[in-house]
């Protein structure tokens, strides 16, 4: 398996060198969103696809294909097995992809079986409570959990061991809660569904991404206790960071793409350049702002290192709390 992929890559590289007289021009680009319409990956494909075409960075409208299954694993496996050399294929990815790879939820597939190309923004994690909640800041909430972990249940949109769950674990670890596993987390179908449960006081807190809670926050129905970013967000400067409250916890859900493993370095570099152009455009800045995404660009070999580090971190965290053995 591994050997055939390496030789495939070698073949593709040789082929690319032979034909590298002209730079790569994308045509009939397809973007796979590894989930049903409506989620973050779908948004990534559709908004990036739209702007790529609006800016004439690609000649035709980008075709978005939804390929749900296995939390992104089906699309990951499909890209490896069926589209290994397709230069006109982008697949949406995020922290959810890397955290599943880290916890071996893609049935043995590895991060190095695709080519990571770039991240275009990040959605920072937020911890929020109902407006009537007794917890006024992150310290209150963490103290309550330390005193009695069963009193506070967190709701979130991802499964157990998924990104929304990991965010709480990051904070709990920073708060020095020894048995992070005791922190209660209940998984709902989406961040929005978890929020509804918070409004009805069925859970005491939610971990979501900033984009998910914007509407309710603006309406004053919920209170954001902390954002898990290095500094306060320019779009929502009133939310304090966890860091300034004394908890060294960062949780960035980056959004970006990977390409099939077998594309040439040329193609990889061209896509990097195209996506960088998109990243710098006003259209993308507007889309980011509207969706609560913070600037978070990573491209080229830097992004590979970032992904590896990301996976190593999640692995360590999951082992610390016993989700992974």
């Amino acid at each position, binding site marked *: 398996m591994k050997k055939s992929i390496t030789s495939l890559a070698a073949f593709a590289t040789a082929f690319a060198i032979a034909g590298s007289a002209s730079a790569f021009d994308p045509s009939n680009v397809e973007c796979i969103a590894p989930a*049903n*319409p*409506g*989620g973050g990956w*779908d*948004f990534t494909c*559709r*908004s990036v696809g*739209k702007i790529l075409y609006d800016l004439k960075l690609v000649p035709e*409208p980008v*075709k*978005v*294909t*939804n*390929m*749900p*299954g*296995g*939390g992104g*694993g*089906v699309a990951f*496996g499909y890209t490896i097995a069926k589209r290994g050399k397709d230069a006109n294929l982008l697949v949406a990815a995020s922290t959810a992809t890397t955290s599943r790879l880290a916890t071996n*939820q*893609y*049935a043995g597939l590895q991060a190095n079986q695709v080519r990571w190309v770039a991240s275009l923004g990040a959605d920072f994690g937020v911890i929020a409570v109902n407006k009537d909640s007794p917890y006024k800041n992150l310290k209150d909430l963490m103290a309550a959990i330390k005193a009695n972990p*069963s009193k506070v*249940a967190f709701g979130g949109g991802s*499964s*157990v*061991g998924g990104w929304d769950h990991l965010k709480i674990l990051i904070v709990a670890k920073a708060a020095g809660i020894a048995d992070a596993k005791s922190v*209660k987390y*209940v*998984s*709902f*179908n*989406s961040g*929005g*569904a978890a*929020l*509804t*449960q918070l*409004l*009805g006081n*069925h*859970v005491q807190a939610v971990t979501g991404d900033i*984009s998910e809670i*914007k*509407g*309710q926050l*603006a*309406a004053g*129905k919920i209170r954001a206790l902390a954002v898990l970013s290095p500094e306060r967000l320019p779009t929502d400067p009133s939310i304090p960071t966890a860091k300034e409250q004394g908890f060294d916890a960062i949780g960035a859900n980056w959004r970006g793409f990977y390409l099939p493993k077998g594309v040439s370095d040329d193609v990889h570099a061209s896509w990097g350049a195209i996506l960088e152009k998109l990243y710098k455009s006003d259209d993308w800045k*507007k*889309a980011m702002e*509207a*969706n609560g995404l913070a600037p978070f660009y990573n491209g080229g070999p830097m992004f590979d290192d970032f992904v590896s580090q990301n996976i190593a971190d999640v692995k360590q965290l999951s082992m610390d709390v016993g989700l992974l053995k």
Partner: protein
Amino acid sequence: METLAGLAHGFDVALTPLNFGLAMFGAFAGTLVGALPGLGPANGVAILVPLAFTLGLPPESALILLAAVYYGAMYGGRISSIMLNIPGDEPAVMTLLEGNPMARQGKAGAALALSAVSSFVGATLATIGLTFLAPLLVELAILFGPAEYFILFLLAFSMIGTLTGKNVSKTFIASALGLMLATIGLDPATNVPRYTFGQMKLFDGLDPIIAIVGLFAISEVLVFLETVVLGEQVKFKVERTYATFKELWFCAGAMLRGSVLGFICGVLPGAGASLGSFAAYTMEKRYSDRGTFGKGDPRGLAAPEAGNNAAAGGALVPMLALGVPGSGTTAVLLALLISLNITPGPLLFVERPEVAWGLIASLYMANVVLLILNLPLVNIFVRLLMVPTYVLMPTVTLICFLGIYAISHSVFDIYMMIGVGVFGYLLRKVNIPLVPVILGVLLGHHMEVNLRRALSLSDGEWEIMFRSPLAITLWAFIIMSLTVPFIIRAIRERRGEQ
């Protein structure tokens, strides 16, 4: 009245030539998508999202187009249920219980016309509810926590016994099979794979739409092949292509009851249109059945059709007012709103009134358009029955394959569909009804995840099931649903003796 002023503003937006034209086109395209087995409203809307972008439509126009597609698909789902005994989408499953027997009795035209009117009544009442009751309903929706949802689904299952008359034990076997199929996939609380045989495609469980197309369409084709070989084919007649006023009046009560139940189920983000049409049918059967249900009682057609269309309108309440999708389709609409730089949620009506009210006004319009469109179309749809079966059946098979492949681009799903189809054929051979199987698949997963959530919230204490007044009310309904039929039967028998 603030609401009426808003609505008037909405009609100004909706009646511009562009928006009106889009609503017409959307209604037509939606009906078509809904009628095709496999493709439902969520797919129809998702397919047209790129079109909305490519045309560079303003947000309210894009939303009007897609909402018209949504309503249209809910209308369209009934057609193949009635004509072919194959549900066009998930909520149309209940439509075939009475609709198809009507078609077999030569009343296909009447059934199509009646169900079109029922859809109109359900969708219009829901839109009125959305206009005037949205803030109130949101308060109701947030009362439902995991425990309450679990009891709600339990209530649905407590009524399943009444579903398909004659043989109650076979109905229970069928729903148990459905519940078992619903356990395929990753365990919702611990991520442990169950019955997946290492196949990543099964991690998310058996897709209900694959189950529906397999169980109904593929098994129908197999049964058809068998009857051809045995030479037992029956020809359908079509008597007329309209519903009489008397028929409509006879079903008026059923439509109203179905609309109310469907709407409530639609408003609850964790319930949805499938539960809505199921509740509408079973309640109607409880209420009106004098041995006529299952044999083409028009009231059993009107209630679930009104119910599933009302649920579609109801699902827009949490979408607009909370920013939470009440169904797969509203999830797509929500994503569209977000990518158009609109933040859904409680402030939508204040910040972007043209979007919120324009959408609601266009729903009223789309509904009228759909009714006008669907009544003459009955004439065309009934011709389906005159298509020679050697053309019709291969076409149905082709559409099933295409429809399933178009959703996920996966050949594996096609194999699954065929497998489930053969399973459905075998069930038919031993007279196990298919509808309870599909209800087990559709509702079982929700029931399980909510039970698991409730118990993890309460640290495993069952007391959470009786904590809220709402939970206790729902339990009371369950007790009533299990005992009242026996009491009524006892009273009737006593009267019969006297």
